[in-house]
């Protein structure tokens, strides 16, 4: 009684076209949506070639599978996830191997699936809930016979063995998935304990950034969600009314509103403010556009709420990560205002869903198209890219009424984004290779300094 994956026909065509040099292996990601009732796969993306190093194919070791670059596949998975709207994610991995490696392929697939999951959970601002499916799909295709074997692994239980699963093709599965959208205003002030340059190097990763954004993330997660202007009970059906044929019908769009409250203090309430010594702060302002898809089999209001909330958290953390990666590459953050990358959308041919990308102010639609092609094997035309979803101009957060500072002139020049100079086009993505060197800015690793009452 394994899972059953319903797969877009376009995926079948795509997989069939993937060819490998004789004797070598090819890996890639499977993208879709998994729920308790159904599993859908809408996209298969080949792992892009790693630019660097390594001997040419066929000459590596005796077993090309051993050389599978698990880290590279994981990083690709993160890049792909950044390009996906809510409700759609990386579900698993596929491998195309010559017939003699078929048996070993299974263990490689398992390694990949576990590594990808671990890598992605590191920077997530939200926790998995009980509803979330922890099975990941693996597909093995024999390069000679083109026979496909589908199995699942439960990432919650690394010692488990593979379970068989069904793999069935169908057309138009996502064409009628309802989409929920909203625009979220950001107004965050995150204190930073230590901004000296020595620590910036040492400091870590994305979980530091998460510490600063976590409080905001909790507010969003526990916020009240309105769908099309109404407060809906968690288990009420999203699509009410007579069930029309979903094939070829209009995609329903729902506008979401999120209402938040500051968190309740714990029962052992402090009677005074929590004070922390810090050497600076980071403000995040502006509006981000969020979008999520819901699988269409009787979706409930809470599925919509969860999907959009996760997209909100993902889009903000992705952009902040990207900007900080960028700044670290240029020698550290300077004081002042920086534009966060804007979100743009493009249709994904063959599935009717949108995918997205993030652009810095100096980038063009052509840059976007190149990245989409590289990461997602997207091959639509540049004109299809919608660059206007989000606003282009940012309010001057320093001079305006809601200031980050309190009127005191701060040290350091105000760096405008045009001074940044030419950025290498895909650098934002490949900079992720040197993960350890980045993002110390929101480090709160050092213990908080409390001034007692």
């Amino acid at each position, binding site marked *: 009684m394994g899972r059953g994956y319903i797969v877009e026909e376009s995926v079948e065509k795509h997989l069939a076209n993937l060819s490998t040099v004789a004797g070598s292996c090819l890996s890639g990601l499977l993208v879709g949506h998994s729920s308790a009732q159904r599993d859908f796969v809408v996209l298969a993306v080949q792992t892009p070639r790693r630019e660097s190093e390594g001997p040419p194919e066929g000459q590596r070791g005796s077993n090309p599978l051993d050389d599978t670059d698990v880290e590279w596949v994981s990083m690709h998975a993160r890049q792909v996830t950044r390009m996906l709207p809510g409700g759609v994610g990386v579900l698993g991995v596929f491998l195309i191997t010559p017939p003699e490696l078929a048996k070993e392929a299974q263990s490689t697939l398992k390694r990949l699936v576990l590594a990808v999951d671990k890598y992605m959970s590191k920077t997530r601002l939200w926790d998995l809930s009980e509803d979330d499916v922890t099975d990941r799909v693996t597909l093995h295709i024999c390069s000679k016979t083109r026979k496909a074997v589908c199995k699942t692994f439960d990432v919650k239980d690394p010692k488990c063995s593979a379970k068989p699963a069904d793999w069935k093709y169908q057309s138009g599965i996502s064409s009628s998935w309802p989409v929920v959208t909203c*625009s*979220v*205003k950001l107004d965050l*002030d995150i204190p930073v304990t230590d901004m000296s340059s020595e620590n910036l190097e040492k400091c870590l990763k994305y979980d530091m950034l998460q510490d600063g954004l976590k409080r905001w993330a909790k507010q969003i997660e526990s*916020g*009240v969600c*309105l769908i099309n202007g109404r*407060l809906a009970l968690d288990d009420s059906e999203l699509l009410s009314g007579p069930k029309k044929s979903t094939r070829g019908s209009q995609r329903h769009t729902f506008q979401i*509103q*999120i*209402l*938040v*409250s*500051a*968190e*309740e203090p714990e029962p052992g*309430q*402090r*009677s*005074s*403010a*929590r*004070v*922390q*010594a*810090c050497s*600076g*702060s*980071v*403000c*995040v*302002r*502006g*509006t*981000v556009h969020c979008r999520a898809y819901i699988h269409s089999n009787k979706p409930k209001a809470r599925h919509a709420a969860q999907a959009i909330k996760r997209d909100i958290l993902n889009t*903000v953390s992705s952009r*902040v990560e990207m*900007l900080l990666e960028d700044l670290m590459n240029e020698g550290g953050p*300077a*004081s002042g205002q*920086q*534009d*966060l990358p*804007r979100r743009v959308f493009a249709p994904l041919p063959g599935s009717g869903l949108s995918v997205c990308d993030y652009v810095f102010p100096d980038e063009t639609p052509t840059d976007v198209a190149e990245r989409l092609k590289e990461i997602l094997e997207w091959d639509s035309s540049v004109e299809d890219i919608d660059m206007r979803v*989000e*606003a*282009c*101009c*940012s*309010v001057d*957060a320093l001079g305006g009424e*809601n200031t*980050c*500072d*309190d009127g*005191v002139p*701060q*040290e*350091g020049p105000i760096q405008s984004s045009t001074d940044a100079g030419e950025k290498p086009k895909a650098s934002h993505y490949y900079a992720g290779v040197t993960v350890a060197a980045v993002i110390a800015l929101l480090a709160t690793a050092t213990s908080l300094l409390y001034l007692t*009452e």
Partner: protein
Amino acid sequence: MLLTDDSTVIFRVRGMLDFSCQLDISNEKRGQSAITRCFEGLRSKISSESLVFLVCNSPVLLWPNKGLQSTVEHLTEETPCRDIHQYITVEDGGSKKASKKKERKDASVVNLKLLMEVTEAGDGSAPSLCVLTRRQHCARMPVSVDCVLSANGFDPLQTVCRGLVGALRRQLLDMEDAVLRHRKGSSLLVPQAFHFPLPTPGNLITVVYPAGVAESQLLSEREVLHRKYGLPSDRPYFRRANAFHFPDEPYRDGYLRNPHAHLTPPSMEDSKLYLVRGIYSYHHYMQDRVDDNGWGCAYRSLQTICSWFQQQGYTERTVPTHTHIQQALVDVGDKESSFVGSRQWIGSIEVQAVLSHLLGITSKILFVSQGSELASKGRELANHFETTGTPVMIGGGVLAHTILGVAWSAVSGQIRFLILDPHYTGGEDLQTITDKGWCGWKGPEFWDQNAYYNLCLPQTPKTI
């Protein structure tokens, strides 16, 4: 209890706001202006279009600063505010019979939750990140706002909402004051709002006190309030314990409050009622996992009296346990140390001693040589309840009880006693307690006509 007008509706909005500001510790004045600016920011949030009121237990959401946009079409600016009730689903707990009898007189409370909308229609501005480098202290605390507005049921919704927004802004001003006044360097005390009932005309006054400051330190603030509202300086009105208890909020400690309020008073010709004032908790046998069946009745009566003093704000001390009571008697030298842990009875004299030692309360003792004489003590008891209003402990024969009031006719001398019986061993079931007379009106024949009785009449200190 509060407002007897049927058509009055009390709107109460509560919410949490995040107070977060950067304090430049080297400069005192800058610190002050940072705090002020932060509260200004909160006030402008309250006045912004993103403010939302969620009507609890209903699908209704209102945007008070957006022309009263709501999630329900039929609610507009002009809708009478009492119509809100139609949308609220009442959670039905507890006995229906009892609530019908009593709640009728109380004004209904509509609870609202304060939320801020973070989504917006339209594009807004592009997202940006701004880095500031400055050594400072970042102070952060959750601020809990709590405002009430009492309205006539026919007042339009818009008026009510505007009133609540105004009340929220004023409360934030009061909170800013409280934070600045009690600030020590970077140490900021959390401001808390309390609602106090005034005797006339039945309004609620909201006061902000800083958390963690003892009542003794807030005396001058209370004096100002007493003067402002023309209240006598001989009893507390503005201690935190005096805060109004909203009818829809259950008491978390599980004790019943004022079960006598659910009784029908006896109808005697030319008689008046003289009852305990304020709120007490019903303490009786077997509570708190103490099996004091057969010996603890006076202890329980004493606990009821202590609960009265705590809830009227005369003491911050919690109700003492049997052990505390026994230890107190040992400490004053009234009993040997072996008394602690025993099941020995106590009487009015011991009650008087404990009240004095633990709470600093003096008591008058009234002695009656025969139970039949109690009927003639009507005037004294009536006078006690009228001027002092504390529950009375009475011990005699082999029993102790609490007298909560009398119905007395000055003309005929007829008298009934309102008795709270500590010998009840069951659970906190109001229905049983009132039906079976564990709290009930008794005639003079209730007393053992031949036994002698001592009554302990606790006095109230003249303090605020």
